[in-house]
Structures are given as C-alpha cells and as structure tokens.
C-alpha cells in the first residue's frame, strides 16, 4: 500500500498492482488508476514544467482539461506519444512515462531561469522583443526560443500503430455519460429508438464516480450506476461507448468521435487498431458534457499541490488517493466545502476552509466546525510558498474592500474552486448562440442551429437531481423527435449536494500585483497581469486579447482559462462580461492523433493505385515504376548493371533503330457518341472535326473558357456518329467532367452520350521502323500497308484474334501503331507481340524513354510544358485552331488584349553551349547573368533530357517573346555556375521533316 492510498476506497482494484516507470523510476499503482492518480498515491505531485517559465507543475484536474501534467508515454519502438495527459492515460503494466520541457531533470531544470526573467516574457513579448535585426530571427532568436519554450518532443520513428475509422447513423447521440447523459439514455433507450451514449472516460458515470454518497432511486449512487449501465447494455437499441471523445460537432448533426482502443491495455491484441475515428450522423443530439471547474486566480496558484477542489474529490472517491496530509481549501463556491467534508471523514482533515465570500450557508460552517475544520470567511489569498511542492498559503482578511493583515497557513496541498462553467465547446462548434446567465454568473447555451438539446450542468443546472431530471426530459424529447413514444421517468435523489457561488476576477492582494504570478492559463503561462497589460496596450476585442496573450490557445483549448481570462479582461475594459463575449471554441475538443484522422489512409492504402493489365508483366521484367496521377507506370526497364540513363538511352536507341513496345493503357479514353457528336467536338476542341473522315484521326487541343490549354490527345472517328477521344493520363476525369458540364448545362439540346472507356481498353504501342513488319501478320480484315493505312488512320479490326481498335499514331516520331484491345486481353496481346518481336530486338520502353523521344520531336506534355497560362499560340500550336470555326470553348478569350500582347512566354527549344550539360527542369532563364539580384527572369525550362538520337542534351522552355529570340544566347544561373544556352524557335529537334513517321 502506497502512502497516500486509502484501503478499500475508490473504484480501483486494490488486489491488482500495476508497475510502471516515471522518468526511469519504478512505481506501483493499481488497476483502474490513471498515471496521475498512481503518481499521487506515491506522493508525487511534480509531473511537469511549464511552457514558458519552466515552473514546476503538478496535476490540477483529473480529466481532459488538464493543462499541466503532460508527459511522454512510450510502448516500445514507434509507439511514443508526447503531451499525453497523465490524468487521461490509464495505468497499464509496463507503462514508460517521461516528463517534458526540462533539462537536465524535472526537479532541477536550467530553463527555470526564465521564471526569474519573467518581466521579459510578458504578453506579446515575441512581437516586442525580437524585432531586429531581421537576420537574427532565423539564426538566433527563433532557434533559442524554440529550444527553451515548448512541450513534448515529436516522435522520431514512424508510428507502428494502425488506426481505424467508421461511419455510424443513430437516432439519438448522447455525449457524456454522467447523470444527465445516463438519464437521457434511459429515457430514449426505453422507447426503442437507436441510441449511442459516448463518454471520454474509461467508465460511464461522470460526476457519480466522484460522489458516491448520493442516493438515487433508493440506491447508493454506484449501485444505481451499475444497474443503469446494465440496463443500457441489455437494450439492443443502445450502444454505450467509453474512452470515446466527441471531438467535433459538424453540420447537420455529424459528430466526430475518437475512440481509444488499446492505450489502456498492457498487451494489445496483435493487429488491433490503436484508435478509431467515428463519423456519426444523428437525428437528435443530446449534449450532457457537464460543467468545468474554474481555478481561483492568485499569486502562486500553480505550485505542485495546488489543484481544483473537484479534482481532489475525484482522486479521493474514485481512486482512493489522498492528495496530501494537510490540504487547505480555498473557494468561491459551496461545492468545495463538501470536498473538505469528504476528506475529513476519510481521515484527512483539511487545515482550513477559506471562502472569499463574507457569508455562506450556516449548514456548511456548522458541519465544518463539527468535523474540526477551521473556517475563514471574507478572505483573500495572496500567495503560496514551496518550490517543488506547496508548503504554505498566505491568507488575508478583507476589510471594507481593503486587504488586511496576512496569515501564513502551513499545508501540503491547496484545493481551489472558482466556481463552475458549463462546458460549451461542442455547442460552440455548431455556431450556437451563447448567453450570459446573470443568476449563476456563467455562460450557458442559447439558440441552437442544429437538432440538439443540452442537459444538466452543461446548461447551468447544478446538482445530481437536476441533472437526472433534465437529462431524462432531454432524452425523452429527443426520442419523440425521432418518432417514438417516450417518457421522462422521474428519479428520486437524496443526499444531493447543490450549491452556489460567485464568479471573480483575480483575488485582491496587498502585494505588488505586477510581481504576482497569478496564473489563468497554466499551460501557456498566461497570468492576470498579462491580460491587463494586453488591455492597457490597446487590445479591445477578447479575440485580440486571446491572441496577444495566447490565453486559451494551448492544447487544453482554454477549458480552465477562458472564463477567468474573460472576467479579468472585462474588468480591465470596464465592461460587463456579456459585453465582452467569449472566444470561439473550435474542434477538436481534445488533442487528437494524426493517426486517428488518417485512419486506413496510410502506407499501401494511402490512396488507390491503378495498375494496367500489362503491369504484372512489367513487374516481372524488372520495371522501375513511377506514379502518374493514380496510376503506377513502368518508367524504364533496366538490364543488370544499368542505371536510368543507360536504360533510357538503350530503350530510345532500340526503338528508333528497330522496334519498341510501350504500355499506353493509362491514356484517358472517352467514347463520344450520338447524332450531334461531331457538333459537340466542334464546340469543345479548337480543331475542326466536321470534315474529318471516318477512319481518320486528328490531334485535338482542349482549352478552358479562359483560352488556356487544358488537355490534348488524338481523336479518331470510327463512324459518322462515333469518336474515340483520348486524353492525357492525368486529365481523363477532368476532361470528362468538363465535357459533361457543357453537355448537361450549356447544350442540353445536343444528342450526345459520353462514356469513360479508359479502363475498358488496354493499349499497346508499337513504335519503330519494324512496327508494321511485326504487326502485319497479326491483323485480320485490314490492310495496314503504308498506302492503305497511312499515318493518323484508325480502324476496327481483329488483332491476334482479338477485337481491336487500331490507330496509326506516333508519339515518338517513328512509324507507330497503337493497338486497343479489351482490357482483359491486354496482357495476352502484349506477350504474343513480345514473343513475335524477338527477331526485331523488340524492346519494352517506359515513360522516361517516351518523354525523351517525344521531346526529340518537340511534342508537348500538357501539365509539364504548359502550366495553365499558355495559349495555343504560346505553345506553338496555333495550327491546331480551326480558323473558320465561329466558336469553340476558349475562342473568345484568345483575342483578349492580354492574350495577344507582346512579351508573352512562348515555348521554344534550348540548346546548351556545352552539349553534355542537361538543364534542370524548372530552372529560370535570364538574358544577362551579371545583372543585379533580383534578376529579370524571362522564363523557365519545362523539359530537359540527354538525347541519344541527337548525341547531345535538348531542352524545351517557355521564354518571353521566345520565338523572336531564335538564335539568341540566354543564360540559366545555377548554384554551380551560369549555363549558356541558345534559343531555337522550333522544338522539332529530330527528323523535322517527319520522314520516319510517314514510312
């Protein structure tokens, strides 16, 4: 038994010890503990150092609102999480936890010198202090500040865990399984409607877990809880999910849940996901999140041992842990008195109850005196002492609004309560209106924008009885709105602890307030003085005060700090709280792992990978692949000992000398069919189509309405009313979308049908002087001789017994064919051609050789040589425009003044003076490399390769007035030196007469 653990108390399993380490030291806790409760049971309060001042800190709370006790939690390689709340991390056998933001050790931290330099680090210090010289920011200030301030360190290894995700639909989603949520679930669940009840804790119960003395429906609270949970679990229409945080509330009742599945397990099942992200669409939502306790704001309210009174109650009743031997209670609310009583009755008599109010319910003082606890009313607290643990509390009398004499009270814990504020976070996500309730001096939810009800303490109703009644009503109403008959059953409650309190700014002090460290936001080290300074320096909006001071911007999302910060800002501004307003809460409610958001989208399932029917052959033949859009394409086929350059040079050489074979299946294909198909293409593409004969192809150029090149591809006419349109590999879906858009919305009168056939056809390209010789014996029903089947012919025929669409086209400048067969036959066709091609030294080539060969011919690749700012004329494709056509998409834009102005960038060729130098794609081009920086950049290199056919490097580039610069020498400045290049206005480097193409 550890020193601060009470035997047989709490919901922990006293028979099951759990061993763990903190900063390398071994401890023992109990099953059911959190890391925080187990450390407190061992007398350890010091769990972290603060963000900015490196002040020693211990846990302030027991839940997800914890700002201080952030640790790193580790479970072997690749399983490390920084900034885990010790109050949320359930204890598991072998847990390795480490403290953060300290060096060399938690107890002795060099960085705590910042605490003594506090005046340097006031609100806005980043903006004020490190203004100049500018160069110092990157090299000195930023690295030093980053090093000194901060939370945990990022993990260095890839996450070894997997994550899951799921959609769900339900009639009623209830967030929070405290008394209000449980009552709502009972009322809704008994009606038969589908209910999901979720809670971020390890078990349902909420406040009941901390208040076992309440009697509900004649049963002790924990018996009632067990009965209720059993009933809910037995209802087939009710799902109860624990360790499940509602992280965000989105449109139309979509709520995101993060369910923690394995972090609490000593040995997770193999392959089990660590977390699961749920997207739940609910007809009705009930928010039963309860209220958050606020700290009191006084000098030294952050020392280890100072915590929320409600937290001490939870440690005592739920975990059987005393937070000290001699705690002092400081409060502005009745609730903390009951906690003092619980402590006294369990054998730990508080040193004192200090209440800032002049009078309280005499029943409270009577009970305190009966338990032998000293009470001090109408007091203020002006300080604490103790370095790594609080040792004393300084209490002053208040006399007629003035701070009177001080008295030091020895203690080893301070339990503070600044009142309670409804948890409005999820409600705030919905853009729901938030109202100020002057009666309870708190913000409560107002008008809603969603089908949502807020029940219990979440709307300012204090006490178990009120929560049960309100929850039952909300659950019944939600079930009725979901179409069921439902009753709000009454619950009888005795020994309830309701109460009231006051809402304050920082407590008055007799000391210099400028020297006080009265914290509001513990995690970001924001003090009351920082808020007042921000207002003095001109911040008027609470949103500005928040950003200037960083109040509420830490990972706890201001759960503890927002209302205290607001009260002090309002006071400094001389306004009432509702006139100042609350800052907006945004998702996620608690920090959520990237893994949960990524879900299944990691590794091989990050995104879909499309493979062609010929892909397995390429893989078997050693292809190196590259991604092109979602496709995996063979980039080159290296032979043993070859690098990419050697392989590509060989593939190009073999193709131009004899025969290359290429998998072009990824080309986008759209079947355009119908009586108006030709009219449609006339309007969509720049080229003329009306006179294109059946059995002929044409290069098609597609513009946006803005006149810029969007896509290109060969289009073949198979019948008067049927076209086989090809697009770029990456552009297929975009082009179809654009065609559908015009067809459906601009020209719905046209009788045209569009079908994506990309994946229906496998496309095998045969390129090279021997292409016809290889193909001819395979073709039936078609004469493919040069005269009968010229360049840019298309026909339906049979190839190797397979139904085929045969194109005579070339993207290499060689005699070429593209054979389209039904996808399922693609590999068979490929393998037959491959076998038969051996006498011709048939060589498979990949996308890299394809790129080189097309660049040797000066053919553009849309998206590489164009970038959405090139017109057809800019790209040297003015010939592709049907001059006689009255209109096509983008035509009007081509005569806009900017589109015909001088100085536009035009696509040209570049030849380096040194033929062995290959330019870098993307490199900038200048006229005079000696001009002062920043230089005038004329354009950039779009494509650059080593060309085997030409025996030198070649490049394409867009250059201002490029064609007029034919023969001019320009320069490409690179880190290694300036490269001189000569402009050539034609990009057709190889066989410009197209003699080979027409062979």
């Amino acid at each position, binding site marked *: 038994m550890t020193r601060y653990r009470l035997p047989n108390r709490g919901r922990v399993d006293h028979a099951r010890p759990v061993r763990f380490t903190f900063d390398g030291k071994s401890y023992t806790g109990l099953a059911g503990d959190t890391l925080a409760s187990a450390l407190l049971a061992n007398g350890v309060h010091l769990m972290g150092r603060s963000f900015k001042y490196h002040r020693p800190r211990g846990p302030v709370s027991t839940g997800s609102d914890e700002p201080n006790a952030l640790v790193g939690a580790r479970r072997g390689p690749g399983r490390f999480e920084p900034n885990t709340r010790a109050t949320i991390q359930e204890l598991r056998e072998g847990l390795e936890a480490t403290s953060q933001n300290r060096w060399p050790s938690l107890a002795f931290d060099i960085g705590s010198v910042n605490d003594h330099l506090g005046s340097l680090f006031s609100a806005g210090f980043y903006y004020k202090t490190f203004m100049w010289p500018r160069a110092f920011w990157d090299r000195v200030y930023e690295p030093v500040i980053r090093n000194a301030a901060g939370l945990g360190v990022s993990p260095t290894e890839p996450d070894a865990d997997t994550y899951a995700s799921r959609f769900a639909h339900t009639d009623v989603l209830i967030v929070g399984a405290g008394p209000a949520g449980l009552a709502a679930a009972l009322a809704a669940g008994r009606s038969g409607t589908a209910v999901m009840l979720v809670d971020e804790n390890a078990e349902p119960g909420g406040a009941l877990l901390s208040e076992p003395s309440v009697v509900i429906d004649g049963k002790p609270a924990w018996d009632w809880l067990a009965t209720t949970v059993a009933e809910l679990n037995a209802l087939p229409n009710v799902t109860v999910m624990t360790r499940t945080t509602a992280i965000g509330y*989105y*449109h*139309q009742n*979509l709520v995101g849940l993060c369910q923690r599945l394995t972090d609490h397990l000593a040995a997770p099942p193999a392959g089990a996901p660590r977390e699961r992200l749920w*997207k739940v*669409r609910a007809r009705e939502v009930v928010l039963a999140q309860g209220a958050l306790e606020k700290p009191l704001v006084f000098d030294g309210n952050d020392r280890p041992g100072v915590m929320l009174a409600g937290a001490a109650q939870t440690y005592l009743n739920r975990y059987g842990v005393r937070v000290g031997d001699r705690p002092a209670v400081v409060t502005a609310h009745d609730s903390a008195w009951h906690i003092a009583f619980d402590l006294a009755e369990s054998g730990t008599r508080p040193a004192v109850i200090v209440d800032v109010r002049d009078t309280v319910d005499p029943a409270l003082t009577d009970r305190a005196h009966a338990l032998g606890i000293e009470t001090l009313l109408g007091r203020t607290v002006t300080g604490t002492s103790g370095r790594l643990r609080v040792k004393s509390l300084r209490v002053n009398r208040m006399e007629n609004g003035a701070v009177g004499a001080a008295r030091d009270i020895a203690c080893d814990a301070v339990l503070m309560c600044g009142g309670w504020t409804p948890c409005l976070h999820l409600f705030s996500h919905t*853009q729901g209106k938030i109202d100020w309730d002057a009666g309870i001096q708190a913000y409560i939810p107002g008008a809603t*924008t969603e089908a949502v009800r807020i029940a219990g303490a979440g709307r300012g109703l204090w006490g178990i009885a009120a929560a049960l009644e309100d929850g039952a009503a909300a659950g019944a109403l939600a079930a009725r709105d979901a179409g069921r008959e439902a009753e709000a059953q009454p619950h009888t409650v005795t020994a309830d602890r309701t109460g009231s309190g006051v809402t304050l700014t920082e407590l008055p002090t007799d000391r210099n307030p400028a020297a006080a460290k009265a914290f509001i936001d513990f995690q970001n080290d924001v003090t009351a003085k920082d808020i007042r300074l921000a207002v003095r320096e001109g911040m008027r909006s609470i949103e500005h005060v928040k950003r200037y001071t960083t109040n509420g911007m830490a990972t706890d999302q201001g759960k503890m700090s927002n209302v205290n910060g607001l009260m002090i800002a309002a006071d400094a501004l001389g306004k009432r709280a509702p006139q100042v307003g609350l800052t907006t809460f945004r998702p996620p409610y608690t920090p959520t792992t990237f893994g949960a958001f990524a879900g299944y989208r990691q590794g091989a399932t990050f995104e879909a990978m499309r493979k062609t029917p010929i892909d397995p052959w390429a893989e078997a033949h050693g292809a190196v692949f590259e991604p092109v859009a979602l496709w995996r394409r063979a980039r080159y086929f290296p032979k043993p000992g070859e690098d990419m350059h050697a392989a590509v040079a060989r593939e190009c050489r073999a193709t131009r000398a004899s025969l290359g074979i290429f998998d072009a299946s990824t080309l986008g294909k759209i079947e355009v069919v119908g009586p108006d198909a030709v009219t449609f293409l006339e309007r969509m593409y720049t080229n003329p189509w009306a006179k294109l004969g059946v059995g002929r192809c044409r290069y098609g150029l597609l513009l946006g*309405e*803005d006149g810029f090149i969007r896509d290109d591809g060969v289009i073949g006419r198979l019948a008067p009313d049927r076209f086989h349109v090809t697009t770029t590999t990456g552009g297929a879906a975009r082009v179809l*979308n654009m065609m*559908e*858009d*015009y067809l*459906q*919305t*601009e020209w*719905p009168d046209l009788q045209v049908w569009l079908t994506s056939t990309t994946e229906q056809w496998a496309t095998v390209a045969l390129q090279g002087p021997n292409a016809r010789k290889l193909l001819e014996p395979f073709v039936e029903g078609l004469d493919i001789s040069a005269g009968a089947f010229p360049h840019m012919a298309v026909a339906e025929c049979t190839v190797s017994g397979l139904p085929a669409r045969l194109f005579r086209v070339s993207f290499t400048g060689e005699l070429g064919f593209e054979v389209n067969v039904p996808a399922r036959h693609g590999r068979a066709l490929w393998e037959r051609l491959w076998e038969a091609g051996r006498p011709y030294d048939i060589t498979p080539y990949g996308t890299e050789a394809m790129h080189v060969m097309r660049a040797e011919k000066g053919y553009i690749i849309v998206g590489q040589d164009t970038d959405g700012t090139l017109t057809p004329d800019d790209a040297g494709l003015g010939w592709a425009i049907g001059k006689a056509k*009255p*209109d096509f998409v983008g*035509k*009007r*834009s081509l005569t*806009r*003044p900017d589109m015909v102005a001088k100085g536009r960038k035009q696509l040209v060729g570049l030849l380096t003076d040194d033929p062995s130098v290959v330019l870098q794609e993307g490199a900038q081009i200048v006229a005079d490399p000696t001009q002062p920086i920043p230089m005038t950049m004329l354009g950039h290199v779009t494509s650059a390769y080593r060309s085997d056919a030409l025996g030198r490097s070649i490049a394409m580039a867009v250059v201002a007035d490029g064609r007029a610069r034919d023969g001019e020498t320009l320069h490409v400045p690179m880190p290694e030196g300036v490269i001189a290049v000569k402009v050539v206005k034609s990009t057709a480097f190889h066989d410009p007469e197209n003699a080979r193409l027409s062979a």
Partner: protein
Amino acid sequence: MLLIRCPYCELELPELEFAYAGEAHIARPADPAGLSDEEWRDFLFIRSNPKGVHFERWRHVNGCARFFNAVRETVGDKFLATYRAGEPRPDVATLKGDAK
C-alpha cells in the same frame, strides 16, 4: 460534412458524393464573339461571392453524375434548396420562410 439533396436521385446524401462547380445561373453567352472584352471578362471572372444566399452549382459526381443547382446560405453554411439544371431560381423569401 453537409448532407445534400440530389434533385435527380431525390435523395439526401453525404457531401462526399458531390463536387462543387461554381456559381449558378451564369450562362455561356450564345455569341461570345459579339461581346466586348469587358463583357467577356465579366462572364469569365466576375462572381457575386455573397455573404448570405448563394446560387451555386454542384455535381453528383460519385452518384448519378448530373449537374444541378443549389441555394446555400453561406454564413450558416446551410442548403435552402436544390433544383435541376435549367429550372428557374427559387424564391429566396419563400425558402427562408419569411415571405410576407
């Protein structure tokens, strides 16, 4: 994630099935060549971008693939109505329930 009613499928479906397609009721001019540069510029680039009720196009791209129109209130990000392409704009006052 919004729920959007496809006026062709007549089903309310998750936003994941849809793609936004810009402001609605901007018809391509019948004779672009007859437009001045300024008129063509307005057609190409000038959009209303209102704070409030917006008429816009969506496509049920992962469903029936039809383009349709929608009325969306951009402050609360709520759909007031969806309707088929080619149908006239619905009356906003009626949709918002504040018609006199």
